[in-house]
């Protein structure tokens, strides 16, 4: 585990998953490794009332019903499409679900403008084809095809980024549950790859990209949509940021404390910026960033790394402000102007009124803007 930069969920939580599997006595659908209730417990964490011998930590933060609806969809006949703004934890939820259900979250197709049908179905090992001809041995199955053969969950990231014809290759996979390979001889049934029970697809889509390559209605029909909103509840957002930051510190083996007051400063500043984006009349008046929780984590990560390697090895409000400006200022001059307005219109009066870390935060922000402009 330690020699992986980022271990997938099934490796990272392998021990916990093993334990859950050992105590799970609820009925399991198909070839699932855990029952739906245990999957939910794994993702949302345990409580005292669950009466377990050990604590299971919460790994995904959000409304319970989203998780329940997702699990139930996977147990049904349809694929699951998680849709939401960037940084709302769609991919993380998809990873946790596939890790819990099939202990394999790495069967992933990444949707891009360059994704082809081969990436979804299969391709050929050309040299083997030349040497031995077309056979199952010279075929390279896609992650989705592997998932079908093993009866596990396949993932498709950023579905709407790939073109419509590629997306439509999923239709037959999701409805007929097999892939035919016309190149092979049909005599011994080699030309069809059937899906085993337990196969399903979790796709994610970015709601900001909608309309780029919108799904056809035939494909829509084969997916259940679970819409994941941006977390606006401050309490759960703090939870998420803390959770992800701890993970990050552990990964980089950094010994550094994140003072709770700075976490508050970060959360509050994002909340303010979101409010101003909501009130803005045109795109020029709001930051280009979606201001998601993931971006908050990015800001914190950046400032932690910066302080650790170039600073005093303690996190300061100044460093946090510099990272905030650096991360959020994407367009010049629009984004810088908005941040400048925010620092002087909101942070400055607050610093005078409340004190705390705000004056230092303001100072850091000013310096960063001065450097960038």
């Amino acid at each position, binding site marked *: 585990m330690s020699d992986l930069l980022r271990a997938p969920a099934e490796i990272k939580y392998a021990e916990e998953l093993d334990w859950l599997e050992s105590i799970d006595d609820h009925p399991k659908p198909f070839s699932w490794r855990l029952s*739906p*209730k245990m999957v*939910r417990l794994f993702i949302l964490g345990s*409580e005292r*009332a669950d009466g377990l011998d050990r604590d299971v930590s919460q790994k995904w933060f959000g409304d*319970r*019903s989203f998780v*329940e*609806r997702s*699990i*139930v*969809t996977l*147990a*049904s*006949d*349809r694929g699951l499409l998680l849709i939401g703004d960037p940084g709302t934890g769609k991919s993380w939820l998809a990873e946790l679900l596939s890790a819990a259900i099939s202990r394999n979250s790495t069967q992933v197709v990444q949707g891009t403008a360059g994704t082809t049908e081969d990436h979804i179905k299969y391709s050929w090992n050309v040299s083997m084809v030349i040497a031995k001809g077309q056979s199952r041995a010279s075929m390279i199955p896609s992650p989705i095809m592997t998932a079908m053969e093993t009866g596990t969950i396949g993932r498709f990231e950023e579905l709407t980024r790939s073109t419509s014809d590629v997306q439509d290759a999923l239709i037959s996979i999701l409805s007929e549950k097999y892939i035919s390979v016309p190149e092979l001889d049909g005599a011994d049934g080699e030309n069809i790859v059937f899906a085993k029970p337990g196969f399903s697809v979790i796709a994610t889509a970015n709601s900001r990209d909608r309309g780029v390559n919108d799904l056809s*209605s035939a494909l*829509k*029909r084969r*997916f*259940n*949509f*679970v*819409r994941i909103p941006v977390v606006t509840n401050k309490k759960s957002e703090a939870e998420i940021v803390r959770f992800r930051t701890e993970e990050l510190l552990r990964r980089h083996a950094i010994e550094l404390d994140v003072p709770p007051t700075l976490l508050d400063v970060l959360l509050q500043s994002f909340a303010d910026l979101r409010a101003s984006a909501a009130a803005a009349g045109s795109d020029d008046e709001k930051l280009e960033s979606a201001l998601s929780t993931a971006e908050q984590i990015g800001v914190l990560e950046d400032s932690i790394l910066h302080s650790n390697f170039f600073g005093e090895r303690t996190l300061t409000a100044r460093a946090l402000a510099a990272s905030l400006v650096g991360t959020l200022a994407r367009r010049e001059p629009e984004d810088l102007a908005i941040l400048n307005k925010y620092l002087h219109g909101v942070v400055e009066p607050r610093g005078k009124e409340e004190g705390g870390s705000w004056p230092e935060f303001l100072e850091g922000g000013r310096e960063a803007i001065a450097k960038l402009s």
Partner: protein
Amino acid sequence: MTGTPFTALRGQLHDAATEFAGGEDALEGILLGLVDDVDRAVAEPLEIFPVCHHSPASALAMARRLREKQPKVVYLELCEDMTPLLTELRNCRLPVAVQAFASDIDGFPPDWAPLSVVAPITEASAEYQAIAYALDTPGVELVLVDRSSDHVFQWDARHERTDDPAREDGTGAGSGTATGTEAETALHGEAVGVEIGDLRPRFAELEEHLLRHGRVRHWSEWWHQYVEVPLGDSDHDTYRQVMFLIGSLFRRLAPGDGDRVRVDEDRERYMWTRMREHLAATGTDPADCLYVCGAFHAASRVDEFGVHGGDGFEITPRTATTWQYGLIPSSNAAIEAQFGLASGSVSIAATQWTKNLKRTRVKPYRLAGQAGTERTAKKALPPTVLPAAGAPAEDRLSGFLQKPPVLDTLDETELLGWSVDIVRAARRNGYLASTADAIAVFETSILLAGMRDRAKPTPYDFQDAAVTCIEKDRVPGRRDVRRLVEIMMGGDRIGQVGYEALPPLARDVHDRLAPLELNLQQRGVRRALLDMTSRPELRACSDVLWMLRRLLPHGAARPVMGERRLGERSIQESWDLALGTHQRALIELGYEGVSLEQVLEQRLRRTAYGPRATTAEVLAAVEDATLYLGGRRLAEELGTRALDVLAGERTVDGAPEVLRRVRGLLAYYRTSEPVLPPWIESFVRTGYAHYCTLLPTAFRDEDATVGQVAAMLGFLFGMESLALSLGCDRTQLELAVAQAHPNDPAKTALLWAARVQLGTLSRGELRARCDELLANPLVVPSYPRYLSGFVHALEPVPALADVVVEAVSNAFGRLPDAVLLPWLPVLITTLRSNAAELAPLLIREAGRIFPARLAALDAWVPPWHGQPAAPRALPAAGAAHGAALLAAHPATCDALAELLGRTEGWTEAESSAGTGAALLARHPATAEALATLLAPR
């Protein structure tokens, strides 16, 4: 407390407390306290019937108990002053709300007005069962025992608190903030809601804990799952004990919020005091009575509790506020919004109630003649055989608490029906949904319910499943799937107050609109066509409609064709009427008076006599009084008031409006009345003097706009003849104009125009001044502002139109582009906004002066260029010029003087050069031609 039926339970709880908390401590106190509360309530000789609001289980248990016990007196937890209204419920379609309303308040802070309390009543509620039984069974008395509406506000500590007062008291203020169904949720307006049987944890953490472990999202869902369903078929004793227990639990596990606890306890003291008073007064045996109250109040620990409780509570007298009572329509959505229930929960409760009735075959009570569904209940059925009343209570709690949760079995047919229906509804609303979706919804519902530990999907599980499987896009303006499910599950039901239960005013309105032959009680828009020539009797309807339009909110009565203005009425009108939809507004109008005329009169008076009333507003009230009420009495009274207000005004802000209204009224009176009413004569007289006084200041005051000063001059010149005939003096105006020394170019131009009208400045001089302005490069940039003054001057001096056209033409011809071009938009906006009614005058005049055809333009010379050079001024009119004529032709005067016997002779005229006489001498041709014409005769 040994020897009570609960000894065994006590022992068990004691053991449990010892095991979990390690001994006698708070936990044991709470657990045993719960049993004490139940014990106490069960032992009370006056039977307490605990209920929860919008609980079909409560309603069902109530119907059963009433049939079985047939009590002679029913005490109900509802504001005692609402008693007389309840019998009117039979004329309504439920849900409706009983309302107490006070606009005239005395004894409360004035900013609380108007006060309004509503108590919504639905059919699927225990209180309705009690009301229906008591009102329709001979010999049964219904007594409302809760504090009066007045006390609701007396005890309201909102002036001491900053947080939301309504929720704190177990009451809800109608906020109407829920999205989607604004109109329905706002049915209660701003009223404070009271409800029978408010039962909900008051401890946020407790509620959160219960929701979390019940795997539900809303309190209503939890209640349905864990109380409603298990209690559905239980017997009376179990029902009662369980409800007592829940009430006691929520009561004991509540944070010590002083205000709220105080109000609750005071209410309990109030109710018990009232009940004891009633029992003592009538001598009824407590065993024949039934006390219906919220389970929360049944677990009360106040000293006054019980028939034998203490008598220490003194009921404070009501304030002097006058309360009006009525029924207003309500709706499920309005109830949910007001009391913070999950959306759709009241509708689901109603559906559940119908289902329970069918399943258990219990006959519910219904008020005779109740509108809505058909009457199903028969009164006075023989009591069914059930455990004898009065038998010592047994411990039913232990059994109930130990029983595993009753799992409602899967009703496959019902779920299939739902799945098919939702897909159909979704398709109708533009979703791409198919039979495959119905299958998926069915399957997902069962799976979701399984994950949430229940065999039967609740409506909420079904809702989640439908959203998951059907909702793929969000289109603004389209109903989302969540809402579709709510509609499908019974949807919103909107109540209606029947004709007989309406206040006199509303009934009067319906009576007077009867000739229209429309069902105006029904919701929705009705189109009324009134042809007054063929059916003169419809004139009265038209009068009513115009008054309704003035008094009700927009949309209740909207004219499509036809208008009513001073002196004008249409012979044909068509209206869009939505009185059924706006029933609450009409009913609340009824609290103000007994007829539309009376209410309108009151409102007009209130406007006119308000401390901030302006002359223009009072004149508007006069106009409305004339227009809608006819007759001269009120108009004259308000007119006199306008006079007072005008005399007290020190600014000229309202001048344009005053001018417009007075002109309208004068024109109306001149055409329709034999003589002008005295008030308007005084108004013109006073106005003339008033505006003369204010004129010099207004000219100089920077805050007074050109439009306002122009309106003042308009009043002065327009009403001049009338004012002078009434004894005003023109000198006053001349002096006022002479005193005016404006700084602003626009006002200066206005002053010049005024002086032309007064004759102290000739047109020639005016032209010369304009020329000077144009010739002077230093003032040219301000020339446009002079022009705007001239445009405004058309209002008081319309005869000046030709000069204005000339000035504008000169501006176009001579102004440098640098000045002209930036000014053009300003000219257009000025003409549009300030002088919209003056523009036609200007255009007509321009049309007269400029050539009509392009060909004629080349040869065209502006008329002002053809005139001899200035300053050969043509005198307009003036006393001095006439005098010169007299001196030149003295014969007539001499003859007259001789007749009168005056012989003093002529005084010497000082300067009689120029003038009309000189003109006559210089151009004798006209006079000679006239003489030739006249000569033969």
